[in-house]
């Protein structure tokens, strides 16, 4: 798996623990893919305060908004998705308006588990017919599992009807060879654990999902020699408490820790998930964001284009 096969995807689902940088990655990958001459849309899922606004300087709406050559963004809000879904399903417009305006129906839909998720997924499936690549900034970990689970629950509950049919289509779409899952992870033990658990849960819900690509954000690929480590250790044990050099040594320990955490994360993700790990160095996408979100996405997309990513075959 390389960055190129991500580019060739029809549907790219990006998820991960909150705070790992999945929205930034979605935006950057979307921008990069659009630059490869593929019509691309970046999708946020039912967000009250879309992070795409910050990253592109435009508020994404339900209807796609153009933000550059080949590149649109949108926010799939469930109410609009429901209207669209009803319009597809119920041929008479007047009845759709009647349904949407009916308070009883609204309560019914609010209270019925899975309706929101079903119509959102239906919209994503529709977008896949309209664009070469659809990049979905999925909800974080557990919420992503819930979203993927919904069409499966629909099959269990409904023997017939349009929801069942659409759910079957969505499940088939998730299993397509051109559908790829990306889980964004950080080189920290707890987040690696959660990433492994997330994949286990997703796989349990939908066994036809292909092994995910793991993007290890803010990774620090080891470059310290054994001798350097040895020396750092000696300095630490002798002068660790010395006020004048404390911060320098702290920075060194921090660096050594990041290097070994990156190596451990890479090892565990490759062996336990059998996944390909794509490293993004902290220089490409640190959470610091001095230049604002827009600038980070620009730099990050440029880094992907330069193939500045270190790709590690499992």
């Amino acid at each position: 798996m390389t960055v190129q096969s991500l580019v060739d995807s029809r549907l790219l689902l990006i998820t991960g623990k909150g705070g790992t940088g999945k929205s930034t990655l979605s935006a950057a990958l979307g921008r990069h893919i659009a630059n490869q001459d593929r019509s691309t849309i970046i999708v946020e899922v039912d967000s009250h305060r879309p992070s795409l606004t910050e990253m592109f300087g435009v508020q994404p709406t339900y209807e796609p908004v153009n933000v550059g050559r080949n590149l649109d963004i949108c926010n799939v809000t469930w109410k609009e998705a429901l209207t669209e879904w009803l319009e597809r399903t119920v041929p008479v417009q007047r009845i759709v308006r009647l349904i949407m305006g009916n308070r009883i129906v609204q309560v019914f839909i609010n209270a019925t588990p899975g309706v929101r998720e079903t119509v959102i997924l239906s919209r994503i499936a529709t977008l896949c017919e309209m664009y070469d690549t659809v990049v979905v900034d999925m909800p974080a970990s557990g919420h992503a599992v819930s979203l993927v689970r919904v069409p499966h629950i629909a099959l269990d509950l409904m023997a017939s009807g349009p929801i069942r049919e659409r759910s079957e289509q969505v499940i088939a779409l998730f299993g397509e060879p051109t559908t790829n899952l990306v889980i964004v992870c950080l080189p920290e033990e707890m987040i690696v654990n959660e990433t492994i658990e997330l994949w286990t849960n997703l796989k349990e819900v939908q066994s036809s999902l292909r092994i995910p690509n793991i993007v290890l954000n803010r990774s620090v690929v080891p470059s310290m020699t054994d001798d350097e480590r040895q020396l750092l250790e000696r300095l630490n044990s002798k002068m660790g408490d010395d006020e004048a050099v404390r911060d320098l040594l702290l920075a060194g320990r921090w660096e050594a820790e990041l290097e070994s955490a990156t190596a451990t994360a890479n090892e565990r993700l490759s062996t336990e998930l059998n996944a390909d790990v794509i490293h993004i160095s902290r220089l490409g996408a640190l959470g610091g964001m001095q230049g604002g979100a827009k600038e980070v996405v620009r730099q990050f997309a440029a880094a992907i284009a330069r193939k500045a990513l270190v790709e590690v075959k499992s």
Partner: protein
Amino acid sequence: MNLSSLLENRDLLICVGSGGVGKTTTAAALALRAAQDGRKVLVLTIDPAKRLANSLGMKRFGNEETRIELEDAKGELWAMMLDNRRTFDDLIDRVSPNETTRDRVLGNRIYRIISGSISGSQDYMATEKLHDVALSKRYDLVVLDTPPVKNALDFLEAPGRLARFLDRRIMKWFLTPYDEKRVFGRLLMGTSAVVFRLLAYIFGRDFLADLSEFFMAFRDLYDGFRQRHEAVLQLFQDGRTAFVVVCAPTEPSVKVATYFLDELQTRKMPNPGVIVNQCHLVGEETSDGRAVLETEARSMSEDLGTNTVDRLLARLGAAHHRLIELSRTEMVFVDQIKDKIRSDQAVWPVPRLEHEVNDVASLKTLGQHLFHKTM
């Protein structure tokens, strides 16, 4: 207000904030400290990292309150991991007017799915369990680690959600045909006829039958839910409660934090301040430090490769420089929060620890930093 007096003077602390900022460990460290100081404390967490849960000896299922053995504590520390389905089942049991209603709800297929796997129910159940333990008065202090929510508001709005679904007038309207024991689809007139026929077409008749049964069963639970909703809201606004916003010094996390500050104020929920975790706190570069380190390094590296000292020193310099840059950026975000808060609120910065917090010892270290100083 400092954190220590918060632990002494409140009965309920609720940690809110975006995911990945150390809410769980913060909640656990606060609870541990209060227990050390002599209170009987329960920390209620949603989904702690496995290692932390294991080292504290928490049980994953059954809402079991587990006492955590501490050697040097004057009080007691208890921990519980929220079991979503179990909490939901208990709730149904409590609000059901009789056993028949309870069994009908618990046996309903749709109920089984909602209570198990649909997102959103977790926020609700957290407030539910909270209501339960806080009002039981079994603990001096309860510390809640809130679930990772999709939208910041989900948690604050959770208490009202189920009550709204169960709005009585709407229920009645919807259930009228069933009350009158009519067969679905027959004898319905006008708008309702069209609506019902459509819903039947869209969802399939079997599902609709399950769903109406679900609604019917829940109808009798409405009063119970409303009362509990009001009790939880009261608890949230109580003077003995405090919401502590937890964030990291990054743009997205600080955005969520300021959003919480606004919302808590609007809702009149007590909010003494913000804990900013994972700060890289370092001092400025000094040429002295480097010189001192170089002399020392040369004297202890005779057995090491030729360029080792130069390489390591360059590396340390660069790493230190990066840390300083990072900490400057972070301070901008901390300042944004300071500008935002009221004069009676505080910001508590906590340095990023060198090792992961996954046992009692590291929780104590985190606690030392938490109670170290106020900005």
